[in-house]
């Protein structure tokens, strides 16, 4: 079995170390890194479809995403060195707003977005609104994902959106919001472009937002 097939199997087995090692071997065998990237995406799509069909669950999805990310880190470096252009669905800046240190939801979304072909810049938790703006500028992001678990910190999301407007960046990013304190009505009221309640749904929304 070629190393690339074993890389795909490592993702199916949620094997982080295996994914890393088989990614290295795949490149050593001379495989085209772009094709390797596509195989990883294919594996994640398969996992995602099984989740959607009710045959796999969140631990499987996140386990596969972690394994995929480990392999992707190796392959993306090779893509960069080759001078080729990897097809990315978009660049996402993701973070939990100021005053809030909850991270699980955000981390799940970040992992799934990465595994599904997005470049993800995770700026962490308790992030002041100006740092969101800075990260979007520096990374030329086209999607912003913000999390807020607490009712009292949800308004920070509005501050970020206002800051983006002031910086002339609002039209350049699609904004999705989430977290226990967030609702569809709240998202609409602050001018966000979308809200989803679960991490897999957030990925589907990001795919809708992705530039053509």
């Amino acid at each position, binding site marked *: 079995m070629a190393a690339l097939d074993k890389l795909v199997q490592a993702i199916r087995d949620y094997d982080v170390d295996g994914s890393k090692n088989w990614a290295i071997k795949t490149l050593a065998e001379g495989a085209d890194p772009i094709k390797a990237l596509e195989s990883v995406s294919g594996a994640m799509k398969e996992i995602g479809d099984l989740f959607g069909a009710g045959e796999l669950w969140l631990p499987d999805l996140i386990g596969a995403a972690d394994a995929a990310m480990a392999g992707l880190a190796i392959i993306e470096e090779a893509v960069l060195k080759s001078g080729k252009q990897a097809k990315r669905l978009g660049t996402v800046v993701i973070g939990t707003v100021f005053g809030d240190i909850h991270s699980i*939801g955000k981390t799940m979304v970040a992992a799934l977005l990465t595994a599904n072909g997005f470049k993800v810049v995770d700026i962490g938790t308790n992030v002041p609104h100006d740092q969101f703006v800075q990260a979007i500028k520096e990374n030329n992001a086209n999607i912003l994902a913000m999390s807020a678990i607490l*009712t009292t910190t949800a308004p920070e999301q509005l501050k970020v959106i206002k800051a983006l407007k002031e910086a002339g960046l609002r039209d350049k990013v699609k904004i999705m919001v989430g977290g226990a304190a967030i609702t569809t009505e709240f998202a609409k009221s602050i001018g966000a472009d979308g809200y989803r309640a*679960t991490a897999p749904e957030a990925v589907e929304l990001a795919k809708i937002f992705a530039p053509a």
Partner: protein
Amino acid sequence: MSAKGFVRNFPPLNILTEEQVQQIHRAALDILETTGIRVESERARKICETGGCKVDRENNRVRFPPGLVVESLRKCPSSFHMSALDPNNDIIVGGNVTYMSLFAGLRTVDLNTWETKIPTTKDQDDACKIADGLEFVYASTSYTPYSELSDEPPAMMLPVTTCSRLKHFSKISRVGTTMGSHVFEIQMAQALGVDIYGAFECQPPLTWAEDASDCGIACAEAGFPVEPGCAGSMGGAHPVTIAGALVTAIAEVMSATVLVQLVRPGNPIIVNAFDFPQNMRTGDFNFGAIGGYLFAAGWNQFWRTTYGIPIMNGTPGPTNSKSIDFQCGYEKALGVLICCLSGANIINYVGGLTAELVYHPVQSVLDNDVAGYVGRFLEGIKVDDETLAVDLIEETGPIPGFYLNKAHTRKWWKMEQFLPYAADMLTYTEWMRTGKKGALELAKERADYLLKSWESKLPPGKEEELNKILEECRRWYEKTGRI
């Protein structure tokens, strides 16, 4: 004179062996010593360091020596008194007594469509008035009943709802904990001369946010009891195994207790954990799941049999159901029974409906009835010469003898039976004749009655004092950009 609460007259439910309890105990102490807690507040880190903990400022990690932890836990009183606005609602927390408390919801719900609605401050006040009349409710958590108000900015949610409870709910309240609101909430309690207890909500896994430790410190300095608590999803923020979740939750709450005891040795503590299995499809909590009640029973047994510290449960507050239906009924009722039998002292149960999304006063009336039903069970069977009734049995003899006309029956029946306020207890014919009302309809009528019959217990001038503190809070939030 304090409220009697429900006195459990038989041994509590134990689901762990003594050895299992000690395994969990040792594991929690190991975690605190080797892994430690991430502590965001430098003030809290300094207190821990002075108290004997090892502080690693590079990653804000505090490690707790087992000796310090055990010594701190032993300083916690096994029971304590709390004064309410109405002295008849004072409580004595600890031992074999259980009090019911309000749960919380972001919003209210339309009882016809089951769609959520953002409540107003009037809805908040009305819900408090109804709760004030509930016979078996003696306390409330914070951000309760509602935590999203259409006519107040989110930052004001905590101080506004605390002020509302202090005005309209003459029972014990919790305060805290985001954005420093506890500073003003403590002042409100002090203005009324009532006790509150302060939230110190650890963020799982193994983390204290600055707001949380600030609230714990401030409440201890003010001499109020503190509730170190955590709320983990098993399989998300805590290990998926119930034993592992217990270890992590116990470690988190032990660490918070150490801080409080370093601030004020002997400060009253009530320990709380609110763990549920993680929903492995949505990532949310599986509210109402039996795993949450296994956790609660293990939690209660741990604290009861190791340090004897008073215990709180919040597990039966929420349900996964989106309406007041059979699922809501069994998830909450079975759960509160388990919590009571395993020895919780305060249970945040009443009024909660969908997840932490919904509170409804009609649900609070129904939960009050379940509380009374379970509470009657806790009281057990009284066995003495009078209740054995041997003389009466001999006197009454066989048929045609009967008991309905006896003085013994008149004296004892109301003590032996529990009479719910909002359950259908009619004969079928009467039920047909009076409109076929079920529990939901009866609870609506009861809620209306409690609202109309509410009377304020605030002494003159106190409402103005509370309003003044609330406005100071609002101005401070405006000044600091939170509003």
